[in-house]
């Protein structure tokens, strides 16, 4: 499965994967989706509408380079030349700066479509907690958006906020979820998820003698409440799928699902590739449409 590059602390693991059962040489239509987010970038390459290869990396200081690195990493070891890609779509925060893209599509459309693919057609509500924003989307049985809301005003309740916090407490980001449950009793949520206030508050709690895990629990639970209050507006429907990096943080997600009182859907795919998958699928649909003309 995913080949991993080891990194430390707040850093999560970058990875790439290719489907050993697919020979790209046999494909009729090859499309790519590149999602350049504020914190992470992904590229997904699809052969005839199936996921052939993908990558998930940290976004660099420049969008075009991040897009290029993500695509190269996805294609690593496949021998597929980039010229074999019939159509490429850019999405995400940096979508207009993806040099190899034939067009760009918003992350709202791509996340709905991608979630519908990786979680299956029962998806009706998609929550994407990205590096610096939070999106709630309702979609129909075809993965088409019916209602959406995006909040990117501040980093509270986003992946970046969690990274800052894990760094502050010196807890690797992948362990935050697990450790936030290693507590005797669920503490009160911290009063603010605002990154600046939460830092001060956490330092104060530690000084008062709280254990690190308790502080983590209090922060995860504040995040859960914050994210819930954002998605409430669009109405939550059964078939609840979570995309983006926060989907991997049980500490926040389990607490949030408890408030929502629903079960989150499950997938074997990396939840961070949803946007790139949606983009590649739109590319596939557009090529098919064009060829039929």
């Amino acid at each position, binding site marked *: 499965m995913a080949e991993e590059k080891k990194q430390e602390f707040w850093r999560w693991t970058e990875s790439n994967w290719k489907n050993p059962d697919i020979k790209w040489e046999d494909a009729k239509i090859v499309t790519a989706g590149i999602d350049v987010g504020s914190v992470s970038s992904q590229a997904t390459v699809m052969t005839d509408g199936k996921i052939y290869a993908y990558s998930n990396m940290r976004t660099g200081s420049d969008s075009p380079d991040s897009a290029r690195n993500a695509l190269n990493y996805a294609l690593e070891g496949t021998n597929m030349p980039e010229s074999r890609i019939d159509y490429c779509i850019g999405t995400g925060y940096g979508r207009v700066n993806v040099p190899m893209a034939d067009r760009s*599509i*918003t992350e709202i*459309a791509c996340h709905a479509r991608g979630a519908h693919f990786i979680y299956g057609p029962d998806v009706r509500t998609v929550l994407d907690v990205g590096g610096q924003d939070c999106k709630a989307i309702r979609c129909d049985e075809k993965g088409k*958006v019916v*209602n*959406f*809301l*995006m909040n990117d005003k501040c980093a509270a309740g986003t992946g970046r906020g969690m990274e800052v916090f894990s760094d502050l407490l010196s807890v690797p980001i992948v362990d935050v979820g697990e450790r936030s449950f290693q507590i005797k009793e669920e503490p009160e949520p911290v009063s603010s998820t605002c990154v600046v206030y939460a830092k001060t508050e956490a330092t104060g709690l530690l000084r008062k003698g709280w254990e690190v895990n308790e502080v983590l629990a209090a922060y995860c639970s504040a995040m859960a409440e914050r994210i819930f209050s954002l998605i409430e*507006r669009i109405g939550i429907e059964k078939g609840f799928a979570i995309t983006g990096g926060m989907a991997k943080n049980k500490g926040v997600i389990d607490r949030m699902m408890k408030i929502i009182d629903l079960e989150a859907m499950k997938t074997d795919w990396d939840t961070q590739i949803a946007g790139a998958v949606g983009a590649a699928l739109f590319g596939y649909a557009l090529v098919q449409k064009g060829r039929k003309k």
Partner: protein
Amino acid sequence: MIANYGYKDGSGDYFIAIDTDKCDGCGKCVEACPAGVFEVVDEDPNDPFREEPLIIVVVDKRKKIKYECGPCKPPTNRPPLPCIEACPQDVISHSW
């Protein structure tokens, strides 16, 4: 599709909802709005298969919508909002 543009912060919810299926991009709301909150675009950025014009909330206005709309919303005796009045299709609604 209902597109919600705006944000939520400590003081409340500030969203403008656009019912995109009803909008034909006639532009009357754009003319009526004193703050330049809306613009007509050729296709829906959130639906690549819809190719008719419609309005969106201008990107730069999304994070300060509360302040942009402030002059239209005095705390007492609020008059009808120009954007809502101008639209013949009942596309626009405000959450606050």
